[in-house]
């Protein structure tokens, strides 16, 4: 008897599911792009965090959105899962290509080994790899950034603005990439004030990448630095940077954002304390790549987005850079001219 009841319940559930399915099955086509069949199809493979991380992935997403609007391309997005095997990344790229999105943007250096394999297996596909030169080929373009140059400028800004001659740096995860930020920041600050004290803290060690998405850790680290006498802190820590802004607001001290202009995206109460942000224009790089495809001008190889190419820089929202802008721009020119060579390692 009881078994009967279970069976009955199951079949009802099955019917319900089937019913639902048929109603949704018709919808996907409706929402899809209705533009011309010839529209270029771009696949986007994000790193862990994906769209909505208010930092690195979002910058890439912004470039994609702009391409969608301005160039009328069709897009498909997929995001990495934390702790996934290498084969999953490879599979993601391949499935995007199989689904017809044969030109792909791979966001983040973790995709390098997969890009190498997938690009070789699909010679017709054109792939852009952001933040890495580990995979190269006739159909791969490597989009890299001179983060140390942009960080040099905000480091100089921090030293010029600091009254205590004591500043801080918060790195999300202790990787070579984030060390470039630290190296530039330190060099910039020391160029202004050789004796300046710089507190450095990394939130997590690999393979624990939570330091890129944990505002609580960022807040604790920032509070500690402010208490130790720092009055400007720069966080290159993705989503954890939100914690810095909270701490800065509470302590009424200065903070520096990263990747995008965070004085525009931080909570309104924190915005006056975000004096500038180091800009890493992943959106520009992504858009440029897609544009090169639509124009049939794809060129393989490494493309470096540095100060000269306007691929990195600092933001001036809020006007707090106005008094030192001349000095910063002088440094900028010296870097562009090669008179200052910013180290990429601390």
């Amino acid at each position, binding site marked *: 008897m009881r078994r009967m009841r279970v069976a009955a319940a199951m079949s009802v559930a099955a019917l319900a599911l089937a019913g639902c399915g048929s109603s*949704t099955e018709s919808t996907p086509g409706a929402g899809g792009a209705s533009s011309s069949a010839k529209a270029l199809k771009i696949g986007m493979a994000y790193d862990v965090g994906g769209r909505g991380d208010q930092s690195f992935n979002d910058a890439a997403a912004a470039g994609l959105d702009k391409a969608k609007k301005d160039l009328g391309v069709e897009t498909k997005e997929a995001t990495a899962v934390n702790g996934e095997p290498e*084969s999953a990344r490879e599979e993601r790229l391949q*499935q995007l290509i199989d689904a017809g999105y044969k030109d792909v943007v791979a966001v983040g250096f973790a995709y*390098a080994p997969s890009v190498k394999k997938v690009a070789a297996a699909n010679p017709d596909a054109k792939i852009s790899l952001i933040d890495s030169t580990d995979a190269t080929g006739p159909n791969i373009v490597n989009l890299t950034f001179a983060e140390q140059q942009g960080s040099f400028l905000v480091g100089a800004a921090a030293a010029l603005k600091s009254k205590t001659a004591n500043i801080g740096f918060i790195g999300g995860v202790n990787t070579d990439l984030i060390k470039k930020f630290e190296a530039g920041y330190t060099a910039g600050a020391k160029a202004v004030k050789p004796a300046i004290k710089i507190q450095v803290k990394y939130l997590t060690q690999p393979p624990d990448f939570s330091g890129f998405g944990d505002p609580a850790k960022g807040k604790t680290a920032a509070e500690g630095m402010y208490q130790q006498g720092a009055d400007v802190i720069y966080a290159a820590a993705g989503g954890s940077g939100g914690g810095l802004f909270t701490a800065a607001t509470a302590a009424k001290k200065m903070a520096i954002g990263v990747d995008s202009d965070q004085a525009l995206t931080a909570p309104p109460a924190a915005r006056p304390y975000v004096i500038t942000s180091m800009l890493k224009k992943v959106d520009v790089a992504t858009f440029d790549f897609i544009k090169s495809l639509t124009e049939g001008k794809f060129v393989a190889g490494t493309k470096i987005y540095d100060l000269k190419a306007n691929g990195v820089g600092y933001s001036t929202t809020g006007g707090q850079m106005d008094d030192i802008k001349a000095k910063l721009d002088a440094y900028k020119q010296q870097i562009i001219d090669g008179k200052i060579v910013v180290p990429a390692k601390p």
Partner: protein
Amino acid sequence: MKASLRRLGLALAAPVLALVVAFVVTSIVLLLAGDPVVAVWTQLLTAPRPRLIVGIINGASVYYLSAIAVAIGFRMNLFNIGVDGQYRIAAFAAAVFAGQGWLPGPLNIFVSLLIAVVVGALWAGIAGWLKFSRGVSEVISTIMLNAIATGLVSFMLFKVADSTTGSNVTNTKLLPPSSRVPGFALISGTPNKVYGFVLLAILVGVTYWVVLNKTRFGYDLRATGRSETAAVASGVNVKRMVLTAMLLSGAAAGLVGMPLLFGQDFSYGTTFQPGLGFAGIAIALLGRNHPVGIAFGALLWSYLEQQGNGLQITAGVSSELVFIIQGVIVLAVVIAYEVVRRAGLRMEQRNVARQLSSDQPGHHLPEGAPV
């Protein structure tokens, strides 16, 4: 014959029940979230392509080793949460040694495996020794050791790193080509190969079964796990067993990263797959600590992961949905086994009662006898 068939039926009932529950619960979640139910199950349940089959087998071989390491502890009533730290520190040590290429090909591989086993065992041994000498709970100590392993490995990784300029990945020196384990072209229709170290996983599974079921040591281990007092009464040195079991669990954990190291990554770096130890705990639960059960568990885990990867592309649903399915399956399996066990018990009691009353028609059961 009939009885054994029934037992088989009961054994299969629990996992099937768990899968059905997982199917229903996930569907409800999808419905509540307004996601396309049919598209999701179509993606997850269509036969995987050859490329994916290779990925499933490869993933499963790694999970299998991890789950066996956890299961060794479980059989002894030890909760080794530290497999995660043990496999990472062992893989790092093996990668550093193997990358030097001091020894010729196969010998280099063999000695590196040995190093991984020893390092894994020693790291787990710290928790074992703490329990042995001070009675520290292995749950606490292994969790702490995981954190320490993370810090230690990344500290040392930067010391020995072989980072080429422009690269954002930090890793140990690449293995010389002669020390890489070639894969098998088992599946036709794809250039991807199955890890050669799938054999290692099978070997470890067989050894686990033999040692546990065919040796005195295995008997002692199982006895201690079932009832410590009974084990003491039969002359087992429980404290020593704790230490030994922990060392063995760690030794198996040391092998977890080896298929990845020798078959795919060829170095240990910041992108080496993390979290395998925790997956192992779930899979050991799923497989009821049985070597064959764990194999099915590992394959299922890997299947879901690989098939789930395309969810975003084909169904527009986050791949993290797979975590929900995996979680529900583990939970449902634990409950289902208990339900089925009770059902089996009732069935047996009824059978015995029926037999008793039919064998001896003159004698009736005494009043109040359990039926």
